[in-house]
């Protein structure tokens, strides 16, 4: 008993922080989503009015949800494929590989705000690096972040910059694959492609699954880059869900509405994640 108490005493700071700053607001936001609340006056119960208004009357709600889903559908698989490919390359034993790994990992530890500022410059239609390169080949590049057709894809492109973090996880996963599997496959005459298809990728699926789930959750919370680079424009083409939620809460002082949005987001992410977990039996292989 005394031993348990000591244990609880050690985790008490975290527990207090968790209940006070995470669990408490989490539960409170359920109530707030059914109220009119602007922080300054006490919340007033309005029933399902916020949810009704969001779902039936707010075109920006649907637009922002659509933009976020579109971003998740494109950027998450793309970053998974690119990060796996990069991890495979970084798994090759060549001279100086540790330096390459460091170089590819470095961008992922650059703060998001700094990365966004770099991309603001890179994607500048007049003076940016991307259009500079395109111009040298005779192509006039678009106004990446100011053109409704290109802005979202520019953010997807930017997401690729930070794949170093997941690359390291995939690399760890690759290192974890027992070598005897490859030895056995070689003895059976399997070529490189077959070894990749039959051993590497299946053995890597738990890591891919983890990154897929985290990537989707991250995509639905996408915020900072859009706030800095486009502020939701042009023409709402990068009006991400979290950005709209933030505006509703802090710009327009509509905390009840924003809480309702947060809970809808929670349900959407929970449904997608549950769906993914249901599919994992079919494609995720645990254990050697």
């Amino acid at each position, binding site marked *: 008993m005394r031993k348990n108490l000591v244990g609880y005493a050690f985790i008490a700071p975290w527990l207090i922080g968790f209940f006070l700053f995470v669990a408490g607001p989490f539960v409170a936001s359920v109530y707030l989503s059914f109220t009119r609340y602007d922080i300054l006056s006490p919340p007033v119960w309005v029933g399902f009015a916020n949810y009704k208004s969001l779902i039936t009357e707010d075109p920006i709600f649907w637009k922002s949800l659509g933009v976020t889903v579109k971003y998740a559908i494109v950027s998450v698989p793309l970053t998974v494929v690119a990060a796996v490919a990069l991890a495979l390359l970084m798994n090759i034993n060549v001279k100086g590989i540790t330096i390459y790994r460091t170089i590819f990992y470095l961008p992922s530890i650059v703060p998001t705000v700094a990365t966004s500022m770099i991309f603001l410059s890179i994607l500048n239609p007049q003076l940016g690096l991307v259009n500079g390169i395109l111009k040298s080949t005779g192509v006039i590049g678009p106004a990446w972040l100011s*053109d409704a057709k290109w802005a979202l894809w520019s953010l997807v492109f930017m997401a690729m910059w930070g794949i170093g973090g997941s690359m390291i996880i995939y690399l760890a996963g690759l290192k974890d694959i027992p070598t005897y599997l490859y030895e056995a496959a070689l003895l059976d005459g399997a070529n490189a492609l077959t070894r990749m298809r039959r051993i590497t990728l299946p053995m890597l699926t738990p890591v891919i699954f983890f990154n897929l789930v985290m990537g989707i959750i991250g995509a639905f919370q996408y915020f900072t880059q859009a706030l800095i680079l486009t502020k939701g424009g042009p023409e709402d083409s990068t009006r991400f869900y979290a950005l709209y939620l933030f505006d509703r809460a802090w710009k327009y002082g509509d905390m009840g509405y924003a809480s309702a949005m947060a809970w809808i987001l929670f349900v959407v992410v929970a449904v997608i994640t549950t769906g993914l977990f249901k599919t994992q039996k079919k494609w995720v292989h645990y254990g050697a």
Partner: protein
Amino acid sequence: MAPKSIIRFVLMALLGCSVLAILAWPVPNPMKHPERKQVRFWHMWSGEWKDVVDKIVKRFNDSQTEYEVVSLSIPDSASTKFILGTAGGNPPDVMAQWEAVLPTWAENKMIVPLESLMTPAEWKNFKETAYPAVRKVGMYKGHLYGVTIGMNVSACYYRADQFRDAGLDPEVFPPGLEELDELGMKLTKKDKDGSITRLGYLSAPWKMLAPAFGGGFYDWKNEKLTLNTPQNLRALQYMVANRKKLGYENVVRFQSGFGSDSGAVWSFIGGAQTICFDGAWRVTQMGQYAPKLDYRLRPMPPPKGGVPLAGATNGNFMIVPSGARNIAGAWEFIKFWSGLSHPERAAEFYTWGGWLPLSPAVANTPIYQAYIRKYPQFKFLVDMMPSENLQPPPPIPAQQYVSDAIEKYQDLALRGSLSPEQAIGALEKDVNHELARRMELGYAG
């Protein structure tokens, strides 16, 4: 007790003591005169502007025996922090603001009606002498919630050298918006690919143009929003036509090369724009960063059948939170800075920031007049101040939403995604829907 346990105990005790020592470390007192009453002042300026604020605060503190202002610069998310500070019962005593917050905060009783702090003579004096736009900026439902410490109006800056190069007399400025548009096209330069290399003139934003066309987004007499009006539509049509001639994407590309477009790197100083519509503070900055640049400044000319000396205006205004601990000290500071108490003394502060004054009492002081002689172009801006055609943002609690919506539909019209008629209709529908929703939920419109 075993020696290992003793060492562990001592180490733990040391760690605990260190944590306690850090937590208990006394916060240095920000006051230089602890015997005085503290006035906590929040503002949103940074960089060179913060230096100006610090100078004014120092002047106030030097003049005092009773109060000491301790200022805090909050350049980012200041309004959010103010809301949280107020909700948590720990707001500042006074705050300088310029965001679209006054009606919302006044409606929520977060800020004090300032006439309640004035003597009847001060209140009468304010109502009689303050410029019309100054009165409008700070008022909500008949009460004064903000006293301006610097107004801003925008006007046309133009480069005399580029006028001369084009064979034009820089002393002659187009009398009407239509002529200005024509002249702007002549002064615009493009390369062989059709890309803009110099922007002659780009129309002012819709909020600025609408009053000049006899419209605007608020009927001050009947106290209601006016979005879809023929005047506002004409203003938007003019703006769209101006942008079409230049090419929407062409302008976006050209402007993307402007960088921060502030201070010394203002594109106008660099020569990228011949006629540029901008705020009053640029005059001081021109004196600072390009003192030899030959430029002129004129009010935006009205369109045919339009209204002269019109446009949107806004200001930096002082507010006092309802939960302030030292309301009397806050009010002393507001009077000191704004010039409500001593216009002669405050005039200097306005010149430090290149701000437009609260009233003719400040504008007519020798110090302010000397500033106008130093920067003769500033006179055109000061002369605009008595105009009744300068319109601050609509004084409604949903001010921020309306402002964002106007910009959004202006952008859609400029891009050609909506016609001006469709854009103005959509704006009205959008805003009305939001206001109805807010009313239904019980918020003030």
